[in-house]
């Protein structure tokens, strides 16, 4: 008989990464209150926390701990690298951003670290309650981050909207978990691997509820409506994190649950539903993005479209498709977090809208930022020799292997549409004269670092993808997929 929380050196080592995050976040808040002079070290401290997080995560012994509730595997290590890198880019971009706005408060970093803790728990939870606690930790942190500029109307609106829709989404998730608990008698994901469960209508209903709940977090159409408004009002570096990491974590949770339930592969009707979501998300995201005038809204719709592309992989289902999803998210991290880092570095007045017209002429005025932003956009568009192409390559390959030709064709047609708005930004930066006499703020070292990280990532993953693909494959093999 095991006790409720079996502590021991093993489990301490397993949870150490999250402890580092929690403690550093708390220390930052305390320093903010009692030693405000330490503010300029907060970013460094947060980066150190991320480094510690990765260090302990990679050192943690492989295997499940806490009575098989917390997973440590190649999969969580690979996902941890992805999450840690996203957080690092966000923190680097946040430092100069907060300095410029005069709001360099400890709360920002603390909330970011705590949110990161939540995401990490989501990806490591083998127990639906652990996953849910992770989800809520993430959500609560980011509800506050969305309303970070209390006095700014758009920011308060973003916080409110995110809170209401997020609570709604969490309710769906919780209902789904409850139904699964009712049918399987356990909240363990492993307990779902029960032969009779896959065909049960209540279980299918539970899965649909989970799909809706995590679809909210992924900003998958038709559950996307919050994303553009929230991105617009939230501090841009926080968006760089929110638009990447929780989406990957949500999809991973879906994979974990579905892999347990669908022992004989995904049923065709369920697949058709997932495929419909993918098509809707890609098409709606791309078409609406064409009409956007605000760069953060444009990137929000681009993100909705990208969630459509990865959902193609979910429709394919299976080990290789999860590997494709992992590669896709690494690519999405360097391109999308990079794009938001560039936006954060470009706009002077953070509390006002970000019209794309302001970017006109920046190709000559701020060549490094413009070039990095361009590379991120090309990668998002999936131009070869960038990371984005590699992500699409593996997703479409998986779709064709499974015989989902229609999805693949709709996917590439959507890539073509997306070029219209990505190139619009490139065109403004390079082929128009500047309209704003003032120009963007001077480029801080931290911004330069964040952008360089993404540029290098885009090119290295785009040109030498083999190591990442091998890692992703080894990671994906840890989930018990039915052999096709």
């Amino acid at each position, binding site marked *: 008989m095991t006790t409720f929380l079996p502590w021991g050196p093993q489990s301490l080592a397993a949870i150490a990464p999250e402890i580092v995050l929690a403690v550093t976040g708390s220390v930052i808040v305390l320093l903010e209150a009692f030693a405000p002079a330490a503010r300029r070290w907060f970013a460094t401290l947060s980066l150190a926390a991320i480094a510690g997080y990765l260090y302990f995560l990679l050192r943690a012994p492989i295997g499940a701990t806490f009575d098989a509730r917390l997973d440590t595997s190649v999969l969580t290590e690979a996902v941890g690298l992805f999450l840690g890198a996203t957080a690092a880019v966000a923190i680097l971009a946040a430092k100069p951003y907060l300095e410029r706005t005069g709001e360099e408060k400890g709360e920002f970093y603390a909330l970011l670290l705590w949110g990161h803790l939540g995401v990490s728990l989501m990806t490591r939870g083998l127990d639906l309650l652990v996953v849910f606690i992770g989800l809520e930790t993430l959500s609560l942190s980011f509800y506050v981050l969305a309303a970070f500029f209390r006095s700014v109307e758009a920011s308060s609106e973003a916080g409110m909207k995110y809170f209401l829709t997020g609570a709604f989404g969490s309710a769906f998730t919780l209902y789904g978990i409850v139904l699964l608990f009712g049918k399987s008698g356990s909240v363990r994901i492993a307990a779902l691997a029960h032969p009779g469960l896959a065909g049960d209508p209540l279980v299918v209903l539970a899965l649909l509820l989970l799909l809706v709940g995590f679809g909210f977090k992924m900003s998958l159409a038709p559950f996307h409506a919050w994303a553009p408004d929230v991105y617009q009002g939230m501090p841009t570096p926080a968006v760089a994190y929110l638009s990447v990491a929780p989406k990957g974590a949500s999809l991973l949770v879906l994979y974990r649950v579905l892999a347990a339930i669908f022992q004989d592969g995904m049923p065709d009707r369920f697949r058709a539903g997932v495929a419909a979501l993918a098509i809707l998300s890609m098409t709606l995201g791309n078409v609406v993005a064409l009409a956007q005038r605000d760069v953060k809204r444009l990137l929000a719709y681009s993100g909705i479209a990208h969630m459509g592309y990865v959902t193609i992989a979910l429709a394919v289902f299976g080990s290789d498709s999860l590997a494709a999803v992992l590669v896709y998210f690494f690519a999405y991290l360097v391109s999308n977090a990079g794009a938001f880092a560039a936006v954060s570095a470009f706009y002077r007045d953070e509390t006002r809208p970000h019209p794309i017209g302001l970017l006109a002429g920046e*190709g*000559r005025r701020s*060549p490094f930022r413009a070039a990095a932003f361009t590379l991120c956009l*090309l990668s998002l568009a999936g*131009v*070869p*020799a960038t990371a984005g*192409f590699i992500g699409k*390559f*593996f997703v*479409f*390959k998986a779709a*064709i*292997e499974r015989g989902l*030709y229609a999805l*693949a*064709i709709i996917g*590439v*047609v959507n*890539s*073509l549409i997306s*070029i*219209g708005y990505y*190139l619009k930004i490139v*065109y403004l930066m*390079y*082929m128009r004269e500047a309209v704003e006499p003032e120009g963007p703020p001077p480029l801080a070292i931290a911004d330069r670092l964040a952008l360089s990280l993404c540029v290098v990532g885009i090119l290295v993953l785009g040109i030498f*993808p*083999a190591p990442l*693909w*091998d890692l992703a*494959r080894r990671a994906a093999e840890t989930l018990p997929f039915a052999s096709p």
Partner: protein
Amino acid sequence: MQDLLQNHLLTVVVFLPTAGAAALLLFPESARQAAKWFAFAVSLLDLAVSIPLWTRFDVSAAGFQFTEKVRWIPSVGVSYALGIDGISLLLILLTTLLTPVSLLFSVTHVEKSVRAFSIAFLVLETGMLGSLAALDLALFYVFWEVMLVPMYFIIGIWGGAKRIYAAMKFFLFTMAGSLLMFLAILYLAVRHREATGTWSFLLADLTRLDFSASTQALLFFAFALAFAIKVPVFPLHTWLPDAHTEAPTAGSIILAGVLLKLGIYGYLRFALPLFPDAAMRYAPWLGVLGVIGVVYGAMVAYAQKDMKRLVAYSSVSHLGLVVVGVGAFTTTALSGSILQMVNHGLSTGALFLLVGVLYERRHTREIEAYGGIAGIVPVTTALFLVATLSSIGLPGLNGFVGEFLVLVGTWTSPHRWWSVVAATGVILSAIYMLSLVQRVFWNPLVHEENRKLTEIRWSELVAAGVLVVLMVWIGVRPNDVLSRLGPSVEAVRASVTQRTAQARALRAVGAGLVPARDDEAPVTTGGGQPQGPPLRHQGPTQASARSLRAVGAGLDPARVTGTTMRTAGVQSAGGGR
């Protein structure tokens, strides 16, 4: 270093420009002249490095040479495989030649963001050379798409008044074509995996796959569309005049000189050997579109008031002729087509360059704005005249050889009337080009500002002069080029005709003897298995069915296998493995 040049010559040629571009990043933005000359020097060095490809090329061998192969993404079978045959050799040299020519011209004429221009140009060169050397379909696709980005910037930043529209149209048209090709490439690799159990994107491996007629047709269309847009074949040509007219002179030279040829090259290198049945079935349509392009392009060219647009439409017409030769598919016509691609690169490159020379002095491309300037700029006039004569196919210059071969080769094909109609294109080209020369250089001088026109600069003279020398060389000694082309053309033709003929004969006769099979079932390459692992899980029944059909065809099975071995030999040589 020695080893690099000895064993990895193609890699050096392909990536030297990118290395130069990376070095350019270190230049300060203010070092304008230095950046220009450095880029020119890099492209010149690349030309020098590429010369051994010509001298060390084994004229008698049909397969790929200078091959290199490294695994790139091993677990999905993507390799970094390079190699060239006579066809790619010529186009690679054309590329390494036209890039320094364009950059030399730009030294005096590009003033805006010089460093970025040089970087874009060098990256573009790598894209073009890589597409011409790649023997792995995934690698080819990467290079093929990489070309788009620098060209988009070259048109969009340094182009004319409507450059934004032209750049966007260029990007979207080309991307639209190639995305379907991307899916088709993935499909081929997946099918190869199903058939053999291993992943591969190598051309040599994928050509051994066989598909049912309908699948083959779909895949062929996916490839052919990408290439037809690039050429461009008649109804898909609308992006070309815009892109050409708005691009800066250097961009136009490269666009006409190399980028358009990549469409034909891709068709010959990939679409034909991968889908021989479909390619042969639809070749007549291609030829007809080519014929339409010849006449349509010529007639529209005659109606133009803008010099650059006129030359752009003449490109539509000339490439129409190349397409006719490819559609006719006789050895002579094919050789002529490939030679004509090089000729068109030289003559149209020179024409764009000289139009650029005039434009930089008068800042107008209106034909009406000139007239009577032959006496004022005699050297420019002479060069323009030679380029014109080359373009319209005067014997003694290169254009004649290519056009003659295409027309003769088409005449001996089943589609004799194409030759008849296409020949009118040759006459029409004389009309519009000579009338252009007449109106620009000879008519009475009515615009006083033309009196102050300055003569061609030495850098422009060198750039144009090189092209003119090559026009004469190919015109007088066409065999220097054709001899390198012959075996490769023969190999392309043989691999296609033998495969289709055998497959058809066996299918036709076999239908009566052997119970009809599922359409998806393989029609194996020429009846026998080519060397290498079996592509499908063929039980003894299928094997015996095959020999039955072979007997039914009145063929000794051994003989069938014999011919197959030859085909396989060509193919494996073609794969450079």
